[in-house]
């Protein structure tokens, strides 16, 4: 399980290119920076009001310098502090090049469900709706199936929707899907899995990319 999360984060790191403004959600996305190539220079933005977040401080963390999850961070040269309204202004306005969010379910048309499991968990929506609305490129990270094996990539989400038609890419430990024009395309098979594995564990309809790189188990 921990391993799957690392594999997903490692693959997601390839989506982050030099010079991008990046917003990372909590959960698996928060592991992505560990896998970024050191030659890549990006600015991480967070909803509470910071642009240019640096790594977790080595010691003596400052209670007043944190990311949107409340965890201590640092600030890079050229970074800035601002209020939350401006932070979300950036997000809605499309200033964030890529937003990488955790997901509970994604539909084949790119609908995202990631804020509530009614009757079970009531975390609340946080900034996910705005990120889904504004990000130029929204990538959803999740394990391919529920613990009991039920698929999370569905024809239609069964959980309450965060935003419709917003996910551009899904990365799981089994596969990478792209969603264009409300249709899902399998772009990569992750190491250790086969097309047949993926078909078995995916409810949504999908096509195969002509460039599909099938990695043998």
């Amino acid at each position, binding site marked *: 399980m921990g391993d799957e999360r690392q594999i997903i984060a490692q693959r997601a790191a390839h989506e982050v290119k030099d010079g991008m403004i990046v917003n990372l959600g909590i959960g698996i996305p928060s592991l992505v920076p560990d896998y970024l190539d050191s030659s890549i220079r990006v600015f991480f933005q*967070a*909803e*509470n*009001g*910071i642009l240019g977040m640096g790594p977790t401080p080595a010691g003596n*963390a*400052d*209670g*007043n*310098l*944190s*990311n*949107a*999850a*409340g*965890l*201590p961070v640092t*600030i890079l040269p050229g970074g800035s*502090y*601002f*209020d*939350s*309204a401006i*932070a*979300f*202004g950036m*997000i*809605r306005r499309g200033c964030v090049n890529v937003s990488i969010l955790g997901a509970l379910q994604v539909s084949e048309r790119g609908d995202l469900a990631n*804020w*509530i499991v009614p*009757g079970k*968990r*009531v*975390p*609340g*929506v*946080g*900034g*996910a*709706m*705005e990120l889904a*609305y504004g990000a130029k490129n929204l990538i959803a990270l999740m394990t391919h199936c529920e613990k009991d094996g039920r698929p999370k990539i569905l024809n239609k989400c069964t959980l*309450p*929707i*965060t*935003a*419709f038609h917003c996910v551009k890419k899904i990365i799981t430990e089994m596969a990478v899907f792209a969603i264009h024009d409300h249709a899902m395309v399998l772009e990569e098979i992750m190491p250790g899995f086969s097309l047949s594995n993926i078909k078995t564990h995916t409810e949504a309809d999908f096509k195969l990319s002509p460039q599909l790189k099938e990695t043998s188990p």
Partner: protein
Amino acid sequence: MSLFNKVTDYETVKSVFFDGMTLLFGGFGGVGTPPGLIDCLIESGATNINLIGNDAGFPWIGMGKFICLERAQSLVASHIGSNPVAGDLMNQGKLKVEFSPQGILIERIRAGGVGLDGFLTQIGMGTNLAYEKPIVKIGDQEFLYEAPITGDVAIVYAKKADTFGNLIFDKTARNTNPYVAMASKVTIVEAEEIVPMGTLNPEEIIVPGIYVKHIVPSQGYNWKWKWEMNDKS
């Protein structure tokens, strides 16, 4: 209390809180929530409070401490995931919770603070968070109407205040505080440091003192952050 000296003590501020008030609070995950004013609110005995703020904090951090006392009757927030007590109270029907998208919530507070009558957005349309919000059609497009938010009282945390109430903040503890400070009838500021007028650089002032009614000195925060307790959690 004059226009130019608003510094007071917690005892005086206690009497500002009242049963049934709408209370706006600054902060994001407890960061930037005024710890002394939370304790002061608790000691005031005020109950049936309608809370509006970014989140429910943690059970021992920020507004979470007050929420656990079951003296809030409602909460408008973007998430309560870090405070399981809030979720339990909600599920037991003891706390009415309205979830708002985070950026929409702070814009609603800003709209109240700057005297606008609400705004339109497509964020949240068609989802459960649209609640009963009016749908407004402009030309061929439909939007959700988001109403402005104002409060009876606001509590805010600042790094420095001068005696007029000009405020500057500390790093990401700024977050929602500037707009919370603008949006209530009575704004109370807890400041780490209180300085004479003319001490702050007028370019660096984030909230002009015009919005502030009372200023109290902070005695620092009395909680441990979650990341400081990682061994136990």
